């Protein structure tokens, strides 16, 4: 296997709050090869957004925050770089798309300028060249009449169009890695699909790696090579997408899949839910974070944090699970209720 583009090792992001230390990301390790797509899935507060921002270096050690561990992007330790050097990474090497296109464009700046400025800052293009590239990028992300749209203000565009603009800006300098933090949460379902397909096709075309962060398993499903499931700041399962959906080994993943509505389910049938509430990030349960809500939990689960172990058959893609009592392989399959 080649040197991974992104190598995250035992990353911990801790916010020091008046209520105590919040371990938003608590020992996460990830690897992502160039051109591949990794889905990061978890519920609200599971730390997936903080993970994305820490990986990028947007969140770094400072007053109120401690980051430990290592994020290596194409061989460079992101958190060891000086702020100015890190800024040079953002745009040409790694870019980010945010959740809400309504607020991620500056309301008083014309659409085109959002992209022009990035091009002129990083690639030192002239005004004219930058505008030509901008129009090209807008066309590439499927915006009709890009010349006219570039001169409009964000409020003149629909949410989906705006997210396309954000994506165009992120792609402007041809990054190796795109971190998409819930890029479709604020959009209509039909537009969600278009945006996700757009990201997937752009990634295929330019060989760009993507970290797709979402709370929506289904959104990630068809588009990621691997899926990492987060719970309470930790990875609980990380496996090839088909394994996560077809043969999840962590009870949390299994429960998440079971609680997704299915067209094949009988009408008015009750949707299985996960009892209880997510752990308090300032005071997480000892041992496995999911233990208090886990129907399979036993005393051993409450003892210490379960290590992330590879349970894949020899020679297969790694299937890492952090559970002392994992589900049997092939025990739960997509399409069947309990």
């Amino acid at each position, binding site marked *: 296997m080649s040197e991974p583009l992104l190598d995250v090792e035992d990353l911990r992001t801790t916010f020091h709050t008046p209520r105590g230390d919040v371990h938003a990301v608590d020992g996460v390790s990830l690897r992502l090869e160039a051109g591949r797509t990794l889905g990061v899935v978890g519920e609200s507060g599971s730390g997936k957004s903080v993970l994305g921002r820490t990986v*990028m270096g*947007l969140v770094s050690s400072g*007053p109120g925050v401690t980051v430990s561990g290592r994020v290596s992007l194409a061989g460079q330790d992101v958190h060891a770089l000086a702020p*100015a050097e890190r*800024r*040079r*990474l*953002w*745009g*040409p090497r790694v*870019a*980010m798309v*945010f*959740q*809400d296109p309504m*607020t*991620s*464009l*500056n*309301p*008083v*700046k014309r659409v085109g300028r959002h992209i022009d*400025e*990035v091009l002129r*800052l*990083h690639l030192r293009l002239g005004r004219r060249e930058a505008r030509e590239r901008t129009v090209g990028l807008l066309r590439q992300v499927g915006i009709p009449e890009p010349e006219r749209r570039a001169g409009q203000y964000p*409020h003149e565009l629909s949410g989906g169009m705006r997210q396309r603009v*954000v994506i165009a*800006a*992120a792609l*402007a300098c041809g990054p190796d890695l795109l971190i998409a933090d819930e890029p479709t949460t604020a959009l209509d379902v039909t537009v969600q699909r278009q945006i996700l397909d757009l990201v997937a096709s752009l990634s295929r075309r330019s060989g760009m790696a993507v970290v797709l962060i979402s709370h929506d398993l289904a959104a990630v499903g068809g588009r990621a090579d691997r899926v990492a499931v987060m719970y309470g700041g930790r990875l609980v399962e990380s496996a090839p997408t088909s394994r996560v959906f077809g043969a999840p080994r962590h009870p949390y993943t299994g429960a998440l899949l079971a609680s997704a509505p299915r067209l094949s389910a009988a009408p008015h049938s009750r949707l299985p839910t996960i009892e209880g509430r997510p752990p308090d990030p300032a005071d997480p349960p000892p041992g496995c974070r999911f233990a208090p809500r886990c129907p399979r939990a036993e005393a051993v689960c409450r003892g210490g944090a379960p290590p992330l172990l590879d349970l894949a058959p020899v020679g297969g893609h790694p299937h890492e699970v952090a559970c002392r009592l994992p589900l049997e392989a092939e025990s739960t399959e997509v399409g069947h209720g309990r």
Partner: protein
Amino acid sequence: MSETLTDRRTATRRPDLVAWFSGTWLVVLAVLAAAAPLLPLPEHVDLTRSLTAPTLSGPDPASGHLLGTNAFGLDLFARALHGARSSLAIALAAVALGAVVGGALGILAGYLGRTVDTVVGVATNVLLAVPPLILLIALATVLEPNARNVTLALALLTVPTMVRLARANTMAFAQREFVLAARAMGASGWRVMTRELLPNVLLPVLSMAMVLISVLVVAEASLSFLGLGIQPPAPTWGNMIAEGEGRVLEEHPHVVLVPGVFLFLTVFSFNILGEKARKRWDTRSGAR
């Protein structure tokens, strides 16, 4: 639905006439004031050249003194226009200075936070704690009363307001994702402040500036009235009003009324337009 629509329409229509009048007054005044030295006006400042003119004559277009003369025979219309020159120039310069300094400090404090915010916050609170007129008088006793120093003193008065406004707006906008997005595209702190935050903070600051101009016109007039601003015989509306001291106002009310009406209409107009601008652009009204 239709009711609220018509309500809104009349609500925006009604003050339009007043706003038009205000705008017209300010434009005409500004043009006349700017052109005052070129206009064939009777003497406004040099006592030796008004020796033959009638003193304290009432407004009479036929006499060549449109709005009458003062105790020295100087033409009141000419003095009011020349007074407008200094009043408007000082108020505009002071507001501009205050907006630039206060806006910059506010954006810095709002975006950088921490120590910068604390220092700027303490400084503005200290300034706000001193009553404005007392501050002006204190400054006037130390500084020589000329146009530059009056401008600086008045600018100092506007700085705390501008700092607070810019800081509050900066903090609100800094929470928006576009600032994070700009940082994620490699924008430095300086770039974020100048390219992302400044354009957003500019509108509320400018509309506040409109409101503050009228305050400063009055403040400048007060200083001149007290003899702490521009010194007579150079005219300003404040020291023209001061010429009505003693029995003059009783017997020749026009000496006070002429500058008074100029002052009133100007302040009124700035207020109306400033209020209109604030309603339109202030983020608090929810318009984007």
